[in-house]
């Protein structure tokens, strides 16, 4: 156990990365082998992520399983430092689960299968890296590693859709996603350099996040400078989290992306943004965060309502889910912005729960699209008759997304609202937070409207004859969807194993405020 503890974090990045490199040398002509190999790698990372999550000692708190590998000495002070805390541990687990699900679902990829898994595993490695690294330079490195494969994954394996009045090609989706995320990362990089230089002025010339965090907590960073730096992180990472009005890459990306890429995109990639705001923005520039939170809570509220209202009049299933993701990420941003222990913990739990829920949605939409070759919810109908399991799971995912108790989303959203309703105790923007919490609840009701309308017109009722050939989910799809449903229910009924881990680190995080 001692040896595994030492190596676990290093291995969880190394395994998918090495898997990605090894897969390059596999034969191009045997796609099944590539799939089996990717499953093996994903299984190893899933096991490691479970191990890390379970191993995290919530009574002790702080960063655990830490390792540091020296790289560049002073004055740059860049080291590969690793460590998980209660905020990243659930997200590591989330990535392990989604990666496994994504790899399994990619069974249907027939074109250049090997290359697909090479990129998918590299993407997974990048995401793991961001979640566990404790150094700004490597955080940025892994962030880019997670973002870049996305371009090829969508551009090569995606699908183009003609919506009548407008066209969304896979190249357009890929290009837009890439440009957006790179633009965001430019802001982040400027922010990181500014932080490095400012800390250097104070005599702490380092990229090490632990040292920078200590510096900020000891009041070593000028609050005015922090106020200039935080918006760079807020918008830079916010782009990835689907922050309004920088969200349009997300629905368009989903429409173009293949199923397993959509799963990773909404399931974990968008979480990187919110995680970055917490880990870099709030932890390293707390004074800036405090200054900008009213803006973030406002934008988060806009996200919730705007996404939900947009989703209401979408026809394409992926657009519906894409805009619903924008709406649900709004709860994450809102929760973060409350700066209240319950609200922030709710935001972290919402990241986990939304990741699973959206991945489930995309598995099901992918299953429908693979068979019907269409995603228009106005043309599809009566799916319950033909695809019972898929429709049943879709109904469950829908109920989870509208915040039905018994599913994890309810606990998370409820905590976000609770935090919003009491955040004035810490902050003093009473009307703003109350309004945000109130509108958030309204947003959940709007979610009910579009989800139920979708269920009624697409899934229930009699099916046209043209859908008579549709078959129900394959065993792999059933397994993945079933596992996701199970997770949603278990976390919804018994959230304590997650919350006790999240609570302790959120409390530490908020000590700076």
């Amino acid at each position, binding site marked *: 156990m001692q040896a595994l503890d030492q190596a676990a974090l290093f291995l969880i990045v190394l395994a998918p990365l090495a898997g990605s490199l090894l897969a390059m040398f596999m034969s191009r002509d045997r796609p099944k082998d590539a799939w089996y190999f990717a499953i093996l790698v994903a299984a190893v990372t899933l096991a490691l992520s479970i191990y890390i999550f379970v191993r995290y000692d919530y009574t002790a708190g702080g960063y655990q399983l830490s390792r540091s590998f020296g790289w560049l000495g002073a004055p740059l002070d860049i080291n590969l430092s690793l460590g998980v805390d209660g905020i990243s541990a659930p997200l590591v687990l989330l990535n392990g689960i989604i990666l496994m699900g994504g790899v399994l679902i990619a069974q249907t990829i027939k074109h250049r299968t090997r290359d697909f898994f090479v990129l998918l595993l590299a993407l997974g490695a990048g995401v793991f890296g961001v979640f566990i690294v404790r150094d700004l330079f490597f955080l940025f490195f892994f962030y880019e590693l997670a973002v870049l494969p996305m371009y090829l994954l969508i551009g090569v394996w995606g699908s183009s859709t003609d919506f009548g009045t407008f066209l969304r090609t896979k190249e357009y989706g890929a290009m837009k996603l890439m440009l957006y995320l790179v633009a965001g990362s430019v802001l982040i990089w400027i922010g990181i350099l500014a932080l490095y230089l400012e800390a250097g002025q104070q005599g702490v010339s380092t990229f090490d996040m632990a040292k920078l965090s200590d510096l900020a907590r000891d009041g070593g960073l000028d609050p005015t400078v922090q106020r200039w730096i935080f918006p760079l992180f807020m918008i830079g990472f916010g782009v990835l989290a689907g922050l309004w009005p920088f969200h349009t890459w997300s629905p368009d990306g989903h429409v173009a992306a293949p199923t397993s890429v959509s799963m990773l995109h909404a399931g974990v990639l968008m979480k990187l943004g919110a995680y970055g705001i917490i880990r870099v923005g709030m932890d390293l520039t707390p004074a800036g965060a405090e200054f900008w939170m009213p803006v973030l809570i406002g934008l988060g509220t806009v996200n919730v309502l*705007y996404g939900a209202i947009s989703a*209401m*009049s979408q026809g394409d299933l992926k657009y519906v889910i894409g805009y619903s993701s924008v709406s649900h990420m709004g709860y994450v941003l809102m929760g973060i912005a409350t700066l209240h*222990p*319950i609200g922030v913990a709710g935001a972290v739990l919402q990241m986990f729960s939304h990741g699973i829920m959206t991945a489930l949605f995309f598995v099901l939409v992918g299953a429908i699209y693979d068979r019907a070759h269409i995603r228009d919810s106005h043309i599809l109908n009566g799916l319950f008759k033909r695809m019972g399991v898929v429709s049943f799971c879709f109904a469950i995912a829908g109920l989870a997304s509208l915040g039905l108790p*018994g599913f994890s989303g309810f606990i998370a959203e409820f905590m976000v609202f609770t935090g919003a309703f009491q955040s004035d105790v810490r902050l003093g923007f009473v009307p703003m937070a109350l309004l945000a*919490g109130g509108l958030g609840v309204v947003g959940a009701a709007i979610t009910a409207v579009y989800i139920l309308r979708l269920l009624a017109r697409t899934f229930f009722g009699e099916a046209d004859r043209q859908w008579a050939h549709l078959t129900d989910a394959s065993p792999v799809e059933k397994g993945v969807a079933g596992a996701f449903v199970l997770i949603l229910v278990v976390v919804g009924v018994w959230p*304590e194993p997650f919350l006790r881990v999240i609570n302790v680190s*959120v409390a530490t995080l908020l000590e700076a405020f």
Partner: protein
Amino acid sequence: MELAWLIPVLSFIAFPIIVFWGKRLPGGGAPLAIGAIAAGFALFWVALLGFLAATPDTEHCLTDAATGTLACNFQRAWFNAGLPGLPDSVALSWGMTIDPLALAMLGMVTLVALMVQIYSLGYMKGDPHFGWYYACHALFAAAMLTLVLADSFLLLYVAWELVGACSYLLIGFWHERPAAREAAKKAFIVTRLGDVGLLLGILLLWREVGSFSMTAAFELAHSGEMSHGVATASSLLMLLGAMGKSAQFPFHVWLPDAMEGPTPVSALIHAATMVAAGVYLVARAFPIFQYSGDALMAVAIVGLVTALMASTIALTSTDLKRILAYSTISHLGLMMLSLGAGGYTAALFHLLAHGFSKALLFLGAGSVLHSTEQQDIRHMGGLRKAMPLTALLFSLGAMSLGGIPILAGFWSKDEVLSAVSHGLHPVFIVLALVTALLSALYMARAMFVVFFGPSPESEHHDHPVHDAPLAMAAPMVLLGVLAAGFGLISFNWPGSFGGIGSFLFYHEPEGFHFTWWLGILSTILAVAAFAFGYLVYVRKSLSLEGFRRSFAPAIRVVERKYYVDELYQWVVDRVVMVFSRFIALFDRAVVNDVLVNGPANSARRLGVAMRLHVTGHVYSYALVMALGAAALAILWWWRVA
């Protein structure tokens, strides 16, 4: 008494078992669901006896200062929001409160659920999704029982939403029928709108109290330390939730449509239990409502408006189940009115009596539907001969709710009227009496037309009408006994039992008080209404044609349900969807095409313009490079010089 936690849990366990293995279980899983709820009913008696034996000295029990009754509380940890020990954290628990209110609801819910589930054995026989039906029933029972036992607002909300979801699933049980699908959707969305209010009210209370525990909130209100504004605001918001669930105006539109579900479901969920949850919520949070005062007035007004409106619509409706649905809405309105008047005991007594009677009526209606496959009362008549038992029991229920003396509904309605006359402005009692009269009228209409009136020609030839089979008849008989005799528990019987008012009360035990003038007046009204109905619909010696002709416009307004549905439809189509389409278009045209594609296109145009200088000849690049190097050299030379 602590075993009461098993009551919901048993049904809850039954749910997944029936979903996954229902097909392999004997009887499609139905015996499991019925067994779970039957065990729940038995455990209810255990809890009741335990509670009656308890004193304030018993462990877990104490006299609740806010309500003045004995309450026993049991808790298990659930989860912590925020790090335990920090000031901003809150520990949430699976907790149950056993007090008279909870016990009364518990008894009614377990009993009616048990009866309805047994009845469904006959009613749903041969349905392809028989197992799923029972699974939903089990889940509903679990959620509803959690709702009445919950000791914290959070848990109440959890159960509240779950019963809504079960109602959604069961209304849409025959989802192939577009009407059922639409009704299910409508029911969920409309109640969900009310639930926005409920959740906001709960959150507002949490902000004030710092805990989700009901006892803590009531304590704060009782001691007068709660801000008056917050009490009013949160109780009004919670009232919104109650109005959604209990189908009070203007959220009533979903309940009549919900009749698209199987009839036993209507009996259980949309008559006896779930729709009463709103009334239960107001009764449960009574200390806060009362502390606010204004909120209580709002409850009374909402109740009165709803009761009047729904009873007029019930008079014009021609669908048997919809008549009953509007009657439910109207009676729920009366309960709200009674709560608003401070008649706590009366409201809950009426809730129980109405629950039994209305469940009976629905089961009777189900029996009619089952054998005639007909829902429109214009195509029915004279069924008394073909189905005597159903006719007898249905009439019993109808007369009970119509307020014919010594039946349950008479006593409970009388208590309500008495409370209203004591607690509120005289206008309320006048209008309440009008409602009582209307209620007797529509009950008489339904009962006489369906069972006693002349049978319409050319009906029932293709399938012989038969009376209810045993599985359906037995529960009806039992409910019939309750509908007839339940009123007897309201008296101060000689001996130890002091009537329901000595058990279920707010602050002070209430004896049975009978306001003579009201009792006599309402008896006269009810008897007159039934006599009138007999003359019009059975003897045909009175004709309403003249009345219909002279009030045609007014009647049309009522027949069209005051155009509330149309108004909602207009708002949804013309406001909500238009706005949504606008936002979606805005997102694509402005946010995406202008703000996102715009800069991208500008960059491309710039590139198109600038590419012209690129000739592709290597020597032109070399020349520029040489000139550049020379320029740098000169610049450097200048600086040195």
